[in-house]
């Protein structure tokens, strides 16, 4: 098997030469050379903003490069659109899936496939789907509607879509971020089958473990430049991290043992429906003490969002009590949650936590603007607002350090720092941190985690909701596993076992 693969490697499937892409003066790709062999699984590693997605969007026809050449099977081509890309056998699964929720799996696969006749025989397509699905271990019901599917299943539909259009080069943007550990294994298995058939796989990632688990080769990008292309067997984790960040990084954050005090937040028998009217939380009981981080582990869509929404007053529970510092919340509104001292780092910082068109300072006062020091007698006190913002900008190293700059020009990491600074500074009893490091680069992630730990050591109570199991394991004192709106179990982080947590996340009672 190994020898077969080496033979295949002699054929270059695709080569990109001297790719340059400029976004308003910032070089997202700066003279990048990149090539993939037939049958190779190639990891594209780099921090946020390193240019990985841009490079792949150029290859898959979403963007046009300013300069550079692309060769497919040795022949120079011009890729003007995703459609031309798929004609050349290149397909990409984006981070946010491009499926139509209200259509079935089969219809999604038919949609936009021009190679089919105008008159479509759906039965025939369903059979084709079943065959391909079985061959590659992409189990999914062709008649199900996409909105009924989990994110893992939706990903399989995206892969089927590409395979059925004859893709030979498959690109994945952060594919494992929506999967449970078990699903990740299944996904990797699919990738191995694909590559053994001579298909080329490119995975965009910033998870070092994945590179070692699955990749034949890894290319590291940093700030739009290619740093190196290496074989994982020739390097260590630390080598890769260093190439990625440009400096030594601490990969393991040490969390000092904390001494939890009295309970700050208590949830009693909380049940709640989601927007579709389906029970999203069923009889949930939790408590979080001071100086404690309680992690919620689970695959997204199992009630985590609703859990945060109930505590923050976005959603009124059907039954049950929310008690903060001994006082029961009676009226569920964000305003009352704020008065009760609930801080919240929301999952989508741009959609909920920030107003991109406003300045840093106007985002920093979003929670506290009613206070006398900021708007006494209904008039904004620009001097106090400026000083307060400057202070937070310095404490949290927000770049740029000008409070009048708009949030939309900040990098994702700096945007998250603004949210963090605001939520940790405002007067509060409990902090809900939802996917606090999602989409952040290594340095940003490290900063956020460090701040959360400091906050906990200072006596803060934190509810940490994250899809990143490593993050949960690293930061939490206790871990609650959630599956279909029910708490499966609550375990001490110290004697937690990642395997059994993974099983519980998938609904297997341990």
């Amino acid at each position, binding site marked *: 098997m190994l020898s077969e693969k080496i033979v295949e490697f002699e054929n270059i499937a695709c080569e990109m030469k001297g790719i340059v892409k400029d976004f308003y003066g910032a070089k997202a790709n700066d003279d990048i050379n990149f090539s993939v062999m037939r049958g190779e699984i190639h990891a594209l590693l780099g921090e946020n903003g390193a240019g990985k997605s841009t490079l792949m969007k150029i290859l898959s026809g979403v963007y046009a490069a300013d300069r550079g050449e692309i060769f497919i099977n040795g022949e120079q081509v011009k890729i003007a659109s995703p459609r031309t890309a798929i004609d050349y056998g290149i397909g990409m699964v984006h981070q946010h899936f491009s499926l139509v929720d209200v259509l079935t799996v089969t219809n999604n696969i038919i949609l936009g496939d021009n190679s089919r006749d105008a008159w479509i025989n759906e039965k025939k397509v369903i059979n084709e789907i079943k065959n391909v699905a079985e061959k590659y271990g992409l189990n999914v019901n062709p008649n199900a509607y996409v909105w009924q599917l989990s994110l893992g299943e939706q990903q399989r539909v995206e892969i089927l879509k590409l395979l059925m259009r004859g893709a030979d080069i498959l690109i994945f943007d952060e594919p494992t971020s929506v999967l449970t550990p078990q699903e990740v294994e299944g996904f990797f298995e699919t990738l191995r089958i694909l590559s053994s058939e001579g298909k080329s796989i490119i995975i965009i990632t910033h998870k070092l473990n994945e590179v070692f688990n699955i990749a034949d080769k890894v290319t590291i990008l940093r700030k739009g430049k290619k740093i190196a292309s290496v074989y994982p067997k020739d390097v260590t984790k630390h080598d890769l991290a260093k190439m990625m960040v440009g400096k030594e990084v601490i990969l393991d954050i040490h969390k000092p043992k904390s001494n939890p005090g009295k309970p700050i937040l208590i949830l009693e028998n909380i049940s709640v429906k989601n927007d579709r009217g389906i029970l999203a939380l069923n009889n949930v009981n939790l408590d979080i003490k001071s100086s404690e981080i309680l992690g919620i582990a689970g695959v997204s869509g199992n009630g985590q969002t609703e859990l945060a929404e109930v505590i923050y007053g*976005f959603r009124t529970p059907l039954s049950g009590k929310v008690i903060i510092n001994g006082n029961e919340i009676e009226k569920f509104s*964000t305003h009352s949650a704020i008065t009760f001292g609930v801080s919240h780092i929301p999952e989508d910082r741009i*959609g909920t936590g920030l*107003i991109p068109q406003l300045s840093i300072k106007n985002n920093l006062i*979003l929670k506290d*603007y009613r206070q006398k020091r900021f*708007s006494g007698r209904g008039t904004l006190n*620009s001097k106090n607002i400026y000083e307060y913002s400057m202070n937070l900008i310095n404490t949290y190293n927000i770049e740029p350090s000008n409070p009048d700059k708009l949030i939309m020009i900040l990098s994702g990491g700096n945007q998250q720092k603004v949210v963090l600074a605001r939520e940790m500074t405002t007067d509060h009893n409990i902090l809900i941190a939802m996917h606090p490091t999602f989409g952040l680069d290594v340095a940003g992630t490290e900063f956020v985690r460090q701040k959360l730990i400091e906050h906990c050591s200072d006596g803060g109570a934190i509810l940490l909701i994250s899809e990143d199991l490593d993050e949960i394991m690293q930061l939490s004192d206790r871990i609650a596993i959630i599956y279909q709106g029910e708490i499966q179990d609550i375990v001490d982080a110290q004697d937690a076992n990642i395997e059994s947590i993974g099983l519980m996340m998938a609904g297997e009672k341990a």
Partner: protein
Amino acid sequence: MNFILNRKLRISLIRKRESRKIIKIITPIISLIVAFFISVGIFSLAGVPPLTTIRVVIFGAFGSFHNFSETIVKMIPLLLTGLSVTLAFKVRFFNIGAEGQLIFGAITASGIALFLPNIFPDIPRIVLLPILILAGMIGGAVWILIPVLLKSYYRVSEVITTIMLNYVSILFMQYLYDGPWKDQHGWGFPGSARFVESALMPRFFGTRIHFTIILALGIAILLYWLLRNSRLGYEISVIGLNERAAQYAGMNTKKKLIIVVMLSGSIAGLAGVGEVSGVHCRLFEGLIAGYGFTATSIAWLARLNPLAVIPVAFFIAALSLGGDQLQIQLALPVSAVQIFIGIILLIILAGDFFLRYSIKISERE
């Protein structure tokens, strides 16, 4: 954004980088000149010499003290409705119904002006006028309450409801001045009786420029300050830009939306008060002038800046008076005047568009 022309060509819109300030100022001026020449060109096809057109328009708007003062009179309702639309846009409420609120404000004010003096014959102007103004503003606010409640509780599009309510208010006004409020001594002319002296706005310099101009300018300055420096202004910008974030910050977005939109309606209502009490001295047909739609163009041309609404409203008023003269002096049909104003607005908006976007035509593979 992409438009596909045929199998070969594709048109795409590309957002430009922020232009320099000087270009932002020059562009509308150049657009204006271009537009002017195009319309003059069209009129010369109709047999009117180009220079005559220009002379008539400019003279009509600024040619004499009287004409200039009439431009200001025309500007008052445009300024107020422009401000009304601007404020509502700030909370993402598309108030296309400023005309309806203007008319309803005029109706409530007229109701007070016609009947309160019957009950208190000696009521002085200093008491009656403020009641009149308040009544008109409340009228405008009530008229917009229907669309804003429908929007915030049932997600009904305000674009449709505000437009439809324009016609309702127009028909209601016609019913009033043709029926119960009809002037008994008016020889059958449609309109209410003339208001008593104490219900009329003071006028200045022997012209028809009335006291409302001071209120309108004051409101423009107040709104400018409010949006930039007040707590409410901060809330308005957050709600308008990201409603979810506003809820997240604990703001009662529904309540705030209703308050701000009612303020917007009351400003349009004030325009109605000015028209009946300052210009026409009665409720009558002359109020129906399409202010609501013009106000939308004014607000956009002013880029939703309350201070910029002042010159823009003045400019549109001048155009409309100049246009009237084309009709009177050169006997051009009304539609010619509308073409004239339409071309100018269109080209200015186009200039504004190209300031922000460029168009690229590329070959498809």
